[in-house]
């Protein structure tokens, strides 16, 4: 992609409430550049409930509906069907939710909407814990990671919930993982989602400087390292097609480099890091990447 082709229009106003270095803000800015002004955002409780600004202001130049935590996909179903009934079937109805609202409390409504083939785009910006409430563990928190409710690290008996395959098993139109640290990949996937109809799901890895215990200047580097170490794999599945990995580094870096950057992993000993590295290798082999 030629960066000169990125739309010059901004749908994210100056002066939102995102923390410095917040990837959730950055991701929204670029997602809306693709989705355009015929877009309606449905937003459950998340950091973005704050980022979007308080009444009577709004950080977005598109209509935005705040909704209770567990309900985004169901509300979006109602919104989209209402637009269809009004003879406006082409509006992009987009859920914009965090990992808590997606992996945990919102999952039932997502499964329902996916199964019903609702014509919506569901975006999860995954910062791997309940960051808005002060860094509590979610089922998207990786094993080993410190949070305020896993003070000794998220126990290794857990695995981060495999949201990509959970969604893929509903046979949606489109499911993808990406991160704004790789803008080409990010833009291509939002384009695909926008141009398709049916249930579309994009899982974004989204760094959180306060929650990940990183300097805000390292926000994008952390996400890049997640991909380059293989702890986060950018992939997609279009309809009946096979899962396609959309980016493979020439050589995967050791996960240690990703951990080193982040205070949430600083307590990990060599043995624990090796166990996690083994798990990553196993998954990468399964995906034919190693």
């Amino acid at each position, binding site marked *: 992609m030629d960066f000169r082709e990125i739309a010059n229009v901004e749908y994210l106003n100056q002066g939102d409430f995102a923390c410095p270095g917040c990837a959730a803000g950055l991701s929204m800015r670029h997602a809306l550049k693709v989705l355009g*002004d*015929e*877009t*309606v955002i*449905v937003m459950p409780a998340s950091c973005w*409930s*704050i980022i*979007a*600004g*308080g*009444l*009577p*202001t*709004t950080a*977005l*130049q*598109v*209509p*935005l*509906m*705040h*909704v*209770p935590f*567990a*309900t985004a*996909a*169901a*509300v*979006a*179903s*109602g*919104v989209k*069907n*209402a*637009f*269809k*009934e*009004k003879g406006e079937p082409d*509006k992009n109805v987009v859920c914009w939710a965090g990992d808590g609202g997606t992996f945990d409390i919102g999952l*039932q*409504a997502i*499964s*329902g909407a996916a*199964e*019903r083939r609702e014509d919506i785009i569901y975006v999860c910006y995954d910062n791997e814990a309940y960051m808005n409430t002060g860094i509590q563990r979610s089922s998207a928190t990786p094993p080993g990671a410190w949070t305020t409710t896993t003070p000794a690290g998220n126990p290794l008996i857990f695995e981060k919930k495999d949201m990509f395959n959970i969604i893929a098993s509903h046979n949606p139109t489109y499911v993808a993982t990406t991160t704004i640290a790789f803008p080409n990949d990010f833009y291509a996937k939002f384009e695909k989602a926008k141009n398709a109809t049916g249930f579309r799901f994009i899982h974004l890895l989204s760094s959180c400087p306060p929650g990940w215990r990183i300097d805000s200047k390292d926000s994008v580097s952390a996400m890049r390292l997640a991909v380059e170490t293989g702890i986060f794999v950018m992939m997609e599945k279009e309809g009946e097609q096979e899962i396609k990995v959309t980016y493979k580094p020439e050589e995967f870096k050791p996960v240690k480099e990703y951990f080193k950057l982040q205070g949430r992993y600083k307590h990990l000993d060599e043995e624990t890091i090796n166990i996690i590295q083994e798990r990553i290798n196993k998954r990468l082999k399964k995906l034919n990447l190693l």
Partner: protein
Amino acid sequence: MQKDMLLGSEAIAEGVKLARPKIIPAYPITPQTHIIEVLSEMTAKGELDATFIRVESELSAAAAAMGASQAGVRTFTATSSHGLALMHEVLHWIVGARLPVVLVNANRAIGSPWNIWTDQTDSMTQRDLGWLQVYCETAQEALDTILQAFYIAEKIQLPFMVMIDGFILSHTLEEVLIPSQDEADEFLPPYKPEYFLDTNNPMSFGAAAKGDIFYMLRKSIEETMEGSFDYIDEAHKRFEKIFKRKYGLIDTYLLDDAEIVFVVAGALAGTTKVAIDTLRKNNVKAGLLKIRYFRPFPKKEIVDALKGDKKVVVFNKALSFGSSGQITQEIKEAFYYEDKKPVLYDYILSLGGKEVFVENIVDLANNLDNLDKFKILWRE
């Protein structure tokens, strides 16, 4: 206008069809199921031009209704009991968002233990939300109330909950007058909201509000509730003019000279009327006050109806544990600043579908002097 024998549920579905909603999200629960089955059939056959969304839970039914209403179309859903309880969070949000969703609740007990029969615990525990609440006695009243509900809700931008007794009303046949579509259209104009999700006029709904704004918004809900009596009155007059059927906030039966008054909400009013006829034959001056509107609570009408030297037995089909029956509470509150207060009996008449027969009410009236007005009263 056409006459037919209909189940209460079918009558409601006819009322909904006449109101021309665009979106109906629903999840099945006994005893609401017939309502949504008939509505599914109507949409499948094209008799009703609406989208029926088969959601995966009542929480999602309420959520989808909220989304559709926020997008600016007329929206209906129906539920009961546990379903209403599961919707609770979104029912709050719908009020705060000022969305005129209409919901029918088939009154049913809530577990544990399991019980599918009727009482009013489900809707009474939702009384503080900011939804208007009407309790219906007959299938005809239920059908008519649906049309009134959309009319009033859309005028005042607050949601409306219509109650029918599970099974007693939902599953029994009754002769019902079904208005023609033209009559219904004359009564209920198309829904045209001022604010909705509009990409040509983007705005944000439900963004975080600080105390001052939040307080002002909540105050405006109460002011709307208090002001809604005028719109309800207007709706009733308009309804009577077109359909020749008269409705009020309350209804009465042989009340004026009554020495004993039973207060009832819902289909139990029918049984109570028969009991009153029996009592009158034995020279007991009994009468009925039927509460139709529970929210907003028509204090003035109720005080006017019950003042004087009456003994008032309030029939509750729910209670607030540790306090009293909710209808009793409301009536007591209405009389607080009145000089002359009736003697009130706080009677829990039925829970979980415990049968109420005419003779139960007759016996109760005959033993009234033995009842303790300071206690919650229970049947044997």
